[in-house]
C-alpha cells in the first residue's frame, strides 16, 4: 500500500508514480458520460472493441470489453457520433490511460426516441393502435405479400420457413428500400399497391435487425398511415426481438422477427396438415380395429373350432344318456325287490292256511272215488270205496259198517 505521503518523500519509483496516477484517475473519474466520434475502430476476435473517441481537437483511447459490447445494438463504424458511459482505466505497463466503456448509443438517439414517443402518443390518441381496428389473419392464406428488401436476409428467412411449413403457399415479394431517407415512402407505396390491386391476402412488412436509425423508416408517418389504411391484414416484423418500430403498434399483428412472421402466416396451414394426419390415423386405426374384430369372428367358424364345439355338445348328450340308463336299471331293480318281498309275504300267509298243515297234526281227509270231499257219515254207504289222504300220501279204504 502506498500512502499519500509518498509524494513528499521526494524520490519515487516509476511503479510508485504510476500507482499514484492510477489511484487518482480511477477514483476521480468514474460514472462518466462522454460524447464523441468513433475513430480507428478495431474489433478484436475475442469480442472486445478497441477504438478512439475524438472531437475536433482532442482524442482519447477507448475500450469496450466483450461483456458490454454484445449489448450494443449496432456495430460502430468510423465517424459515428456516439455517447458512451464508463470510467477511466490506467494501464500501468504502458503508462497509458483509456476510457473503459460500459454502454454505447448513437448520439441523438435520445432525440429520436423522444420524437418517436411523441409520434406514438399522437397516433395512439387518433385510435390507430386500437384493438378494435385490428383485423384477424387469414387462417388459410393463398398468397402472402412481403414488403421488404429483395436482397435482405429477412426475405431469405421468410422464404425458407414458408417453403418448409407451407410449401403450397404463394409468395409475392414487394421490393422496398428498408433503410435511408427514401425507404419509408417505398414501403408505404408497396403497401398501398398491394391493396389497390389486391395482390395478396396477408402482408408481412419488415426487415432484419439494425440500429435505431436503420429501423426508423418503419416508424415514419406515411408507413403508419399506409398500414392503418390497409384492407389486407398486416404483420409488422421489424428487427430482432428487442427492436421495435411504430409499425409494430399499428400493424394487425406484431411479429418479433421476420421468421416469426413467416411462422404466423403458415400456422393455419401447418395446423391443417397436422389435423389431416391425425384424421388419417384415426381412419386407419378404426378400420384396423374393425378388421381385427372380424378376424376373430371368422376364427370362431373354423372347422377345428366347430368340431370342438360339436364334441362338446355330444359329450353332454352322452352323459345324459348314460345317466338315464343307470336310472332305468336302478328302477327295475327296485321294482323286482318289491315284488320279491310281496311274494315271500304271500307264501307265508298261504302256508298258514294250508290244509296240509292240519294233516301234519294227524288229521286225514276223506274223499269219494270222484274226489269229492266227504264231510259226514250220511254221505257214505257200506261197501263204498273211499280215499283217505294223510300228510304223506293216501290210501284206499272200504267202508265196512
Amino acid at each position, binding site marked *: 500500500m502506498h500512502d499519500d505521503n509518498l509524494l513528499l518523500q521526494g524520490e519515487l519509483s516509476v511503479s510508485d508514480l504510476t500507482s499514484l496516477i492510477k489511484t487518482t484517475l480511477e477514483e476521480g473519474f468514474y460514472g462518466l458520460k462522454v460524447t464523441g466520434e468513433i475513430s480507428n475502430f478495431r474489433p478484436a476476435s475475442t469480442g472486445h472493441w478497441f477504438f478512439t473517441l475524438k472531437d475536433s481537437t482532442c482524442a482519447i483511447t477507448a475500450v469496450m470489453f466483450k461483456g458490454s459490447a454484445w449489448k450494443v445494438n449496432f456495430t460502430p463504424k468510423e465517424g459515428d457520433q456516439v455517447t458512451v458511459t464508463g470510467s477511466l482505466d490506467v494501464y500501468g505497463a504502458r503508462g497509458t490511460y483509456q476510457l473503459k466503456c460500459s454502454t454505447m448509443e448513437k448520439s441523438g438517439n435520445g432525440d429520436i426516441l423522444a420524437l418517436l414517443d411523441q409520434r406514438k402518443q399522437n397516433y395512439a390518441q387518433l385510435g390507430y393502435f386500437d384493438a378494435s381496428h385490428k383485423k384477424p389473419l387469414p387462417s388459410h392464406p393463398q398468397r402472402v405479400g412481403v414488403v421488404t428488401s429483395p436482397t435482405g436476409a429477412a426475405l431469405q428467412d421468410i422464404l425458407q420457413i414458408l417453403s418448409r411449413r407451407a410449401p403450397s403457399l404463394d409468395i409475392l415479394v414487394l421490393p422496398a428500400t428498408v433503410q435511408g431517407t427514401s425507404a419509408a415512402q417505398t414501403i408505404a407505396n408497396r403497401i398501398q399497391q398491394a391493396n389497390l390491386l389486391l395482390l395478396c391476402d396477408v402482408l408481412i412488412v419488415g426487415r432484419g435487425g439494425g440500429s435505431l436509425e436503420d429501423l426508423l423508416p418503419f416508424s415514419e408517418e406515411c408507413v403508419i398511415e399506409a398500414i392503418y389504411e390497409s384492407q389486407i391484414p398486416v404483420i409488422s416484423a421489424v428487427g430482432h426481438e428487442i427492436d421495435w418500430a411504430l409499425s409494430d403498434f399499428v400493424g394487425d399483428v406484431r411479429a418479433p422477427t421476420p421468421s416469426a412472421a413467416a411462422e404466423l402466416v403458415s400456422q393455419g396451414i401447418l395446423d391443417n396438415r397436422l389435423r389431416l394426419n391425425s384424421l388419417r390415423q384415426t*381412419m386407419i386405426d378404426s378400420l384396423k380395429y374393425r378388421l381385427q374384430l372380424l378376424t376373430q369372428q371368422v376364427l370362431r367358424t373354423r372347422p377345428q373350432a366347430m368340431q370342438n364345439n360339436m364334441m362338446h355338445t355330444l359329450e353332454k348328450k352322452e352323459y345324459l344318456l348314460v345317466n338315464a340308463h343307470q336310472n332305468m336299471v336302478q328302477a327295475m331293480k327296485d321294482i323286482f325287490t318289491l315284488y320279491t318281498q310281496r311274494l315271500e309275504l304271500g307264501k307265508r300267509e298261504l302256508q298258514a292256511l294250508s290244509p296240509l298243515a292240519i294233516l301234519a297234526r294227524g288229521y286225514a281227509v276223506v274223499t269219494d272215488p270222484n274226489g269229492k270231499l266227504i264231510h259226514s257219515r250220511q254221505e257214505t254207504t257200506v261197501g263204498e270205496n273211499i280215499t283217505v289222504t294223510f300228510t304223506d300220501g293216501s290210501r284206499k279204504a272200504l267202508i265196512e259198517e
Partner: protein
Amino acid sequence: MSFEKDVSRIEEIAQKLSASDTSLEESLALFEEGMQLSKKLEETLSEAKHKVEIVLGDDPANVEITSFEQGQ
C-alpha cells in the same frame, strides 16, 4: 369443394368408421374415400407447387409480376 368441407367429410367418415353399426363393405368404401380425400388435401397443402414472385416497377396502379429467383 372447399378445404373445410372436405375436412368435415373426412371427420364424418372417421366417425362412421369407428361406429360398430357400419357394415364392412360400407366401411371399406368409406375408408377408401377418406384416404383419397385426405391425400388430395395433404397434397394441396404440402405440394411444393408454390410460386415465388416479385413485383417490378414502381407504378402502384400498373403492376408487373415476374418469377423471383431465390438467392437473387
